[in-house]
């Protein structure tokens, strides 16, 4: 989606310069949530303030929301048909693959040194060993990253 957004906002509408694009993506990736949505919020805000941010976000969401409503309706109506059940028996393992692959993709960028490998291992052990809330784990990860930053700054 990013190359598509880039050609639209830089080449066609001329709202942004090409050198703005890395900034947009950096912020979109730092905030929680979908990168496409976050970059639309950023661009909407820069062009027309809060109203622009809301408009861009909704514009990004509405077409997909209409399709999801249609698919939901179809699924709820036909989910008991044997052929649909068979299809979902095939789809479920693919979804597990999809999620494991998403983990692999994020992990490839996230685990880059001993410290991040250690954090990953601790998180896995805690998840499989205890019933710990994911939110606490995420806060713990943020604190660990922040503390390491403070420690390195103090030493340098």
């Amino acid at each position, binding site marked *: 989606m990013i190359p598509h957004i880039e050609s639209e906002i830089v080449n066609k509408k001329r709202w942004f310069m090409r050198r703005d694009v890395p900034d947009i993506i950096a912020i979109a990736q730092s905030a929680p949530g979908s990168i496409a949505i976050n970059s639309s919020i950023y661009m909407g805000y820069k062009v027309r303030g809060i109203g622009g941010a809301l408009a861009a976000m909704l514009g990004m969401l509405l*077409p997909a929301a209409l399709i999801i409503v249609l698919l939901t309706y179809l*699924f709820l109506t036909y989910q008991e048909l044997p052929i649909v059940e068979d299809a979902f028996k095939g789809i*479920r393992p693919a979804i597990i*693959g999809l999620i494991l692959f998403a983990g692999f993709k994020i992990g490839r960028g996230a*685990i880059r040194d001993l410290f991040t490998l250690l954090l990953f291992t601790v998180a896995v052990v805690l998840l499989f060993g205890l019933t710990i809330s994911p939110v606490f784990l995420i806060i713990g990860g943020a604190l660990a990253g922040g503390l*390491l930053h403070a420690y390195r700054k103090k030493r340098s």
Partner: protein
Amino acid sequence: MLFQLFIEFFTIGLFGFGGGYAMIPLMEQAVREHQWLSQQQFTDIIAIAGSAPGPIATNTALFIGYQTSGIVGAIIAAGSNLLPSLILVLLLIKLIAHHARTQLLSQSLYGIHPVITALILYAGVRMGVQNDIFSRSAEYPQYLIMILAIILLYKKVSPVWVISISGLLGMLIYGL
């Protein structure tokens, strides 16, 4: 019920660092805790959310909200899930002028992303167990489809195609 949806999806939205898939483990946990859906229904919803265009997290939120409390539920779940993104992107635009703060932020994300990786992988394994794919009663076509899906995704085939192909395979294998 609606208040509970709002609180849960706002929290999920607030902690979903690292793109839409980062929210899946958080949603899985919330669905399990409140027994909104069975694990199988949750997996099916992700299949539908993943085959529609648009962010998978918002699509999943729409569906869970709809299943638990109709149209209003769908709007509340998706809206409260998006609100933290909106607030934090705007906040980051204001903060980005200060170099020291962005450094602290990127250091926190450096610590958050390995945890998110663990959460996503754990959710994948958990859902695999609940769907009888990582279990003794699993059938080998299911493993094959899972491995095929991972290979296709690695080859940069879009998830929509991966889901469609595995649906067709399911019809062929289990229907004939």
